[in-house]
């Protein structure tokens, strides 16, 4: 299937980009070109912002209960096209269909939660803050917001933000990943079908040029970002310098602590899903196993045995358990990290470099890879690989595990596997990470909770999803009144 040259969606119309610059979008399982994405110009960003700005006043005056009905219609359309959306995600990203379905489900969940905006956006008040004087706090929409989305969840991530922004009465511009733009373009066809007033939702395809134009545009009020730490820092700093609010979810190096009293079989299954699900291309992926005490040897043996059985292939084949990585560039980067791990002296227990997928000779496949005897100072222990590479670090005890996590500059997620409530409580209390798993390998917050993050994994204060999103996309106005 070829989706052709993708268009921008501006002011309720699909418009071809005037930019002559196009990038190929590949199916990572086959290397086939499935679409071409334009690198839109600053002028096109300007037109999208102008359309969003023009739509804002009428949209913010639309009652919240009416705005929420658009969310209901969007949810229904997404349900109706669920399987097709999941297949689109798999085709452009490579993740297996189950994972793509999980992604689309999470996108829908955010629409469902945002549909509660008539309640979520209510303010609060107090009578008699002084004699005869009352005080009210009103939540109001702000204006034009945008998001800069990553490749790894091409359908879901913009939906951590856009449904809330729009439900709150703002207008919106999505800049999808230029590596995986097709899902978001398809979702905008559904948004078009919903029938939002022109300019309420807009899509501009492109790369850094579009991002810079959005970040410096005087009529953009704020930006949401998910991606790497260097880009997150850049976006946060540029947005702040231009007087915008920003929430920037960045890189990760997530540790999974396994205590000696962990339930071994369940722990192994959870670690494998965490490390190798979506071919390790999740910001919540487990990258390091910190095996405490006696569990180290049996855990290691079971992990390697089970990981070696994972079936790698085209994610559209339902028997496949792990798909390809997103691009040839990503594949080469991951292979480079594996080589680096070998050079630095880690013991390669399972080598994914030799994986061969029958019928897909050109796919970007790398199999599950496990290193043992990883030391915290090694490159593969410090840097985010964003691929199916797991490092095992034997540790003496809980305190040593915690010290290693403390030294990691990222703070996106961490998990503990234990049968002890005491260790679980100690872990969630002390560890400096935003998303904590207790006997869970992928600590993914559902839509009613914020997608948290600390240290170099998040820049900002209010996160995507849930009540944080409502706060981010509104201003608080306080009214103090007295009647003579």
């Amino acid at each position, binding site marked *: 299937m070829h989706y052709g040259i993708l268009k921008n969606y501006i002011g309720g119309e699909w418009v071809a980009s005037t930019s002559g610059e196009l990038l190929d979008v590949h199916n990572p399982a086959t290397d086939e070109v499935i679409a071409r994405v334009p690198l839109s110009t600053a002028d096109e960003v300007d037109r999208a912002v102008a359309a969003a700005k023009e739509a804002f006043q009428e949209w913010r005056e639309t009652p919240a209960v009416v705005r929420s009905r658009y969310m209901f219609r969007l949810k229904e359309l997404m349900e109706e096209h669920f399987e097709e959306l999941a297949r689109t995600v798999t085709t452009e990203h490579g993740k297996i269909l189950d*994972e793509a379905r999980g992604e689309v489900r999470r996108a829908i969940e955010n629409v469902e939660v945002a549909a509660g905006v008539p309640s979520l956006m209510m303010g609060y008040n107090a009578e008699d803050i002084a004699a005869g004087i009352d005080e009210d706090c009103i939540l109001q929409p702000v204006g034009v917001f945008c998001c800069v989305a990553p490749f790894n969840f091409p359908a879901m991530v913009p939906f951590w933000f856009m449904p809330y922004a729009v439900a709150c009465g703002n207008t919106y511009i999505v800049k999808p990943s230029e590596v995986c733009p097709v899902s978001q373009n398809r979702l905008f066809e559904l948004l078009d079908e919903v029938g939002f007033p022109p300019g309420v939702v807009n899509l501009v395809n492109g790369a850094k040029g579009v991002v810079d134009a959005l970040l410096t545009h005087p009529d953009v009020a704020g930006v949401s970002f998910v991606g790497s730490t260097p880009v997150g820092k850049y976006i946060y700093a540029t947005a702040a310098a231009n007087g915008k609010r920003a929430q920037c979810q960045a890189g990760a190096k997530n540790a999974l602590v396994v205590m000696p009293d962990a339930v071994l079989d369940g722990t192994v299954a959870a670690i494998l899903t965490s490390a190798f699900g979506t071919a390790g291309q999740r910001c919540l992926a487990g990258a390091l196993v910190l095996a405490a005490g006696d569990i180290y040897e049996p855990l290691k043996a079971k992990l390697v045995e089970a990981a070696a059985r994972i079936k790698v292939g085209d994610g559209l084949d*339902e*028997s496949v358990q792990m798909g390809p990585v997103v691009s040839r560039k990503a594949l080469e980067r991951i292979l480079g990290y594996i080589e680096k791990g070998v050079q630095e002296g880690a013991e390669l227990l399972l080598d994914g470099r030799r994986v061969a997928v029958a019928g897909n000779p050109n796919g970007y496949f790398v199999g599950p890879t496990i290193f043992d005897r990883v030391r915290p100072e090694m490159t593969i222990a410090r840097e985010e690989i964003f691929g199916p590479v797991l490092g095992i670090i034997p540790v003496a005890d809980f305190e040593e595990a915690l010290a290693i996590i403390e030294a990691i500059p990222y703070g996106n997620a961490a998990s503990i596997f234990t049968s002890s409530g005491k260790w679980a409580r100690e872990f969630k209390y002390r560890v400096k990470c935003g998303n904590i798993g207790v006997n869970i390998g992928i600590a993914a917050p559902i839509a009613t909770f914020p997608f948290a993050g600390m240290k170099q994994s998040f820049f900002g204060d209010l996160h995507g999803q849930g009540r944080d999103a409502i706060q981010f996309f509104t201003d608080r106005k306080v009214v103090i009144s007295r009647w003579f």
Partner: protein
Amino acid sequence: MELGTFGAILRFAMQIEEQSAAFYEAAGKVVPSLQELAQAARKRLARLEQARREGVAEMILESITGLDSDAYAVTLNPQAETAALQAQSQALEEATARFYRDAAAKLPIREVARLFQRLAQEHESAVHKV
């Protein structure tokens, strides 16, 4: 074929129900009481499709082992005589019930496992109807 993922199990369940519906629709021309089973299979197909769409929870999509579709294969011939059709129907219902029971024990998602238990019961009671 090994059913090693949530999606593979749901797809196989849907294939079984689709196959059952087609078989009973054809066989119902000879044994009219089997038409009712065709309708029941179509309804179950819709419930399975909904479960696949709504029951997926990414954080516990762990790999599944020890389930193979070959263990539940039944040879069907809707052109057969009445007695043979009834025997085939019985074998189909028994194998399908057994699949749902086995799969329910493996599925990591509780709501879907419960659905599979209910579908197993439906097929078990259908054994007595054919």
